[in-house]
C-alpha cells in the first residue's frame, strides 16, 4: 500500500513546489546583517587598459615553456629506484629487517607528499595527457640494449640466477 495513502494529513496545493522558494526567501532575510557590497574598488580605467598591459606582458614571455610533468618524474624515479634496489639488494645480499623497497617507496611518496611543487592536481591535469604514456616520453634518449647488457654484466655476478625459470 502506498505510504502516502496511510497518512490522513494533507498539505495545501502546491506546498512542496513552492517550499524551496519560501525557504530561500527566509534564508535571504536572515542574511541581512552581511553587507552586499564587498567595498573593493579598482583604479580608474583599469579594465579599459588591461588588454594593453596584458599584451605587453605576453610579448615579453618566452615562447617555449618547459613543463616538468610531475607524474612522469614520479614514474621514472620509482622505476629507477626499483632497478637500483634490485641491484643493491642482490649485491649486498643483505639480511637487514628493513625492506629497501618499502623504505624507498615510502620515502618517494613522502617526498612528493611533503614538498610543495606549486602545482595543483588541476594544473597538472590541464597540461598532462594521462593516456599513452611511455617511458620513452620522458627519457631524452632510449636505453640501448647494449647498455642494458653492459649494466647487467657489471652489476650481476651470477647470471644463472637470472635464468632460473629458463633453466628449469
Amino acid at each position: 500500500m502506498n505510504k502516502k495513502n496511510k497518512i490522513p494529513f494533507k498539505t495545501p496545493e502546491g506546498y512542496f513546489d513552492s517550499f524551496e522558494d519560501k525557504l530561500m526567501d527566509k534564508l535571504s532575510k536572515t542574511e541581512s546583517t552581511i553587507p552586499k557590497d564587498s567595498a573593493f574598488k579598482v583604479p580608474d580605467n583599469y579594465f579599459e587598459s588591461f588588454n594593453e598591459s596584458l599584451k605587453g606582458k605576453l610579448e615579453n614571455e618566452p615562447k617555449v615553456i618547459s613543463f616538468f610533468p610531475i607524474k612522469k618524474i614520479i614514474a621514472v624515479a620509482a622505476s629507477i629506484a626499483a632497478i637500483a634496489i634490485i641491484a643493491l639488494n642482490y649485491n649486498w645480499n643483505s639480511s637487514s629487517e628493513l625492506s629497501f623497497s618499502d623504505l624507498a617507496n615510502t620515502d618517494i611518496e613522502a617526498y612528493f607528499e611533503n614538498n610543495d611543487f606549486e602545482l595543483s592536481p588541476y594544473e597538472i591535469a590541464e597540461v598532462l595527457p594521462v593516456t599513452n604514456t611511455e617511458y620513452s616520453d620522458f627519457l631524452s634518449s632510449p636505453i640501448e640494449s647494449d647498455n642494458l647488457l653492459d649494466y647487467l654484466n657489471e652489476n650481476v655476478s651470477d647470471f644463472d640466477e637470472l635464468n632460473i625459470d629458463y633453466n628449469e
Partner: protein
Amino acid sequence: MIEEETLVLDLKTKSKQAHAFEVLVNTYKERLYWQIRSIVLSHDDADDVLQNTFIKVYKNIDGFKGDSKLFSWMYRIATNEALNYIKQRAKLQGVSDTDYQNKLVSNLEADVYFEGDEIQLQLQKAIATLPEKQKLVFNMKYFQELKYEEISKILDTSVGGLKASYHLAVKKLEQYLKED
C-alpha cells in the same frame, strides 16, 4: 556575442588567434578579476594574477578539451592561480597561509582601493576565518552571484555539498559579526 565553440576553434587557429584572444579577454576579464580579487584582496596582486591567468590560458588553449565550459575552465585556472599566489607569498615570507591571509585583511585598512566601512572590514576579517572551500563558495555565491551549478563545475563539488558549505559559511559569518 561570439559562440563559445567558434571562439575556442579560433583560438586554436593561428590566423584568427589574436582577435579571438582579445574577444576572450574582453568577455571574461572582469568576472575573473573579481574571483581573483576575492582571494588575494589587494588590487595589485589581483592584477598580477589576472595577467598570469590569461597567459596560462593562452599557452594552454590547445590542451582545452572542451569537456568543460570555457568559462569554468578559465575560472578554475584563475582560482588555482590566486590560491597558489597566496601560498607562494606566505612561503616566501616564512609564515603560515592563515597568518598571511590575516595580514592581507589588516592591510585593507590602508588600501586605497578598499572603501569599506567598519562592517565591511569586519566582514572581510570574518571571511578570512573560514576554511578555504567555504570562503570560495561564499565569495562566488554571495558577491559574484554565480549559480550553484556553475560553482559546482568550477570547484568540482556537488551542488548539495556547495549548499551545505554556503549555509555553514553564512552562519559562521553572522555569528562572527554579531559577536564583534
